[in-house]
């Protein structure tokens, strides 16, 4: 019985991590209708920055995390201003080709700079090991992930629903033309949101080095997972992707534990079935345009 809870807990931690990694994509793909397959590249950037700071420069882990966020966000903002913004109006094929190109470039560049082997981030000793809670083994690191990601999710939800920026973003997404007419600087809102999403991906990348493994092929390996979160979760709110990430996380951990040989098979099958059953996602409200 306790294994069930351990799996559940690991699954939740994994799912929350996926959510932080993918929620930036939920905005670009779901709300701005831009197919950004290079999202994983930003996550990888954050992960590697964190690794370099902690392992080579001797920074404390918790100081490196914000920097991973900031750097990824800055790179995201720079790319959005120079390249991405020209592609919003282009066909999906162009967007796919462009972002696959970016992904390939990032994979090769990181391979060139950092080498192709998997990289580990030295964790503070307080985060290692696990403790027992009513007989359920709980990893300290995973607990930290649940806490951080849980707080982030709450903050995101509050920003989206309560702040002025949140309402601007929702307006810009619902009807960009009307939003411009009302004096909202839509390109600026999109640029800021894009950068923020990239920053979150970077943070997620830094956190995930321990659990998902970080190597140059990270963007390609996990691209499908991010896409699953967004397409299955739907794009009408932030809750959809969140629930989808939890489902995916728990499902993946459970599948790997109970039917290890079927591995990824289960996840892909579930995804295809869901997409056939509800093409706009499990929690989708509006039709994807």
């Amino acid at each position, binding site marked *: 019985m306790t294994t069930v809870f351990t799996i559940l807990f690991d699954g939740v931690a994994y799912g929350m991590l996926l959510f932080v990694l993918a929620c930036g994509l939920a905005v670009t*793909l779901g709300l701005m209708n831009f*197919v950004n397959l290079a999202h994983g590249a930003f996550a990888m950037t954050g992960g590697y920055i964190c690794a370099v700071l902690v392992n080579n420069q001797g920074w404390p882990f918790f100081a490196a995390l914000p920097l991973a966020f900031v750097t990824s966000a800055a790179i995201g903002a720079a790319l959005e201003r120079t*390249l991405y913004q*020209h*592609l919003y109006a*282009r*066909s*999906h*094929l*162009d967007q*796919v*080709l*462009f972002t*696959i*190109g*970016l*992904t*390939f*470039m*990032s*994979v*090769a*560049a990181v*391979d*060139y700079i950092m080498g192709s082997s998997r990289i580990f981030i030295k964790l503070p000793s307080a985060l290692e090991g696990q403790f027992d809670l009513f007989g359920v083994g709980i990893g300290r690191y995973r607990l930290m992930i649940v806490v951080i990601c849980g707080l982030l999710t709450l903050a995101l939800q509050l920003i989206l629903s309560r702040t002025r920026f949140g309402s601007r973003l929702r307006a810009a997404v619902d009807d960009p033309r009307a939003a411009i007419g009302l004096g909202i600087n839509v390109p600026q809102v999109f640029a800021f949101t894009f950068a923020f999403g990239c920053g979150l991906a970077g943070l997620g990348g830094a956190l995930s080095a321990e659990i998902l493994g970080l190597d140059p092929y990270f963007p*390609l390996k996990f*691209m*499908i997972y991010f*896409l*699953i979160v967004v*397409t299955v979760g739907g794009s009408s709110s932030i809750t959809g992707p969140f629930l989808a990430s939890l489902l995916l996380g728990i499902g993946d951990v459970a599948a790997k534990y109970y039917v290890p*040989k*079927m*591995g*990824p*098979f289960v996840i*892909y*099958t579930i*995804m*295809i079935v869901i*997409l*056939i059953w509800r*093409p706009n996602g499990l929690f989708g409200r509006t039709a*994807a*345009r």
Partner: protein
Amino acid sequence: MSAANDVSTSAKASSRWRVSEVLFWIVVLACPFLFPSRYLIMTDILRLALFTLSLDLILGYAGIVSLGHAAFFGVGAYSAGLLALHGIINEPVLALIVAGLAAMVLGFFTSFLVIRGVDLTRLMVTLGIALLMEALGERFSNITGGTDGLQGIEMQPILGMFAFDMFGKTGFWYCLIVLFLLFLLARRIVHSPFGLSLRAIRNNPLRASAIGIPVNRRLIAIYTLAAFYAGIAGALFTQTTQLASLDVFSFERSADLMLVLVIGGTGYLYGGLIGAVVFKMLQELFQAITPQYWLFWIGLVLVIMVMVGRARIHRWVLWLPNLVIRQIAGRKATVVVPEADAS
């Protein structure tokens, strides 16, 4: 009545063989005599050309963006490999057709998933199917040989007469003939009323269905046919290299394929063939500079192509040939940018 006549005349006019097309195939035929030492790479180009032709059928003519076309390539490759390895069908041509049909069956059943939903869902579903096939290949590694791949494939002579030689000469001619026959078939299909209706669907599915085109049935048909083509390409891969490993399903293969097609241009059939030549030449070039990191350069090519604009690049490339043609054959005889790219 007269409208139907108009359509059939214009379809017939556009399906007539042009001088440039004949020239193209003459150049292709001349290649083995010009570069007799490079059969292997030329065979490689032919296989890639056939595979790209298959993607062109669905992307260029029906507008289906697929990120998982390698699934059919892989099924074809493994079918051909298994048929030869276990001696079920020893005759390569027959095995080729059977392998193509195996991929076609998969294509038919997955087409129902693909026709549902919009671009994004299609991307996901095609990608998911390719990943699923890869996971299956890994799971049943006792059949597929896992990451080591199928080993010890022995090919019998084609039609019992032409044995595969170590220089790849037989393999080259075999691929060329298969490619040419399938190209003729594809050309016939896209210039038929069926092909015209596909273009109507690509340009506007809603209008197409409003004028009475059974959109879903047409998409299923072309998707299944494209799967057959991709399966044949995969089978040719196995038969000429005597190799089939899990990377036939890889995402990079599907992504490269899109690049090849985009380099060549979509929607006029020759895009795949020209793209394959340019892609392989680029690959040779980049691998000579940085063997390990050629992925970077391929990525850069993709980014630049999109940023500059595909149609614009094709116009630049065609500028010189058009200048020459205009000098020789007068003002009207120019090679135009394929319509699919212009949009």
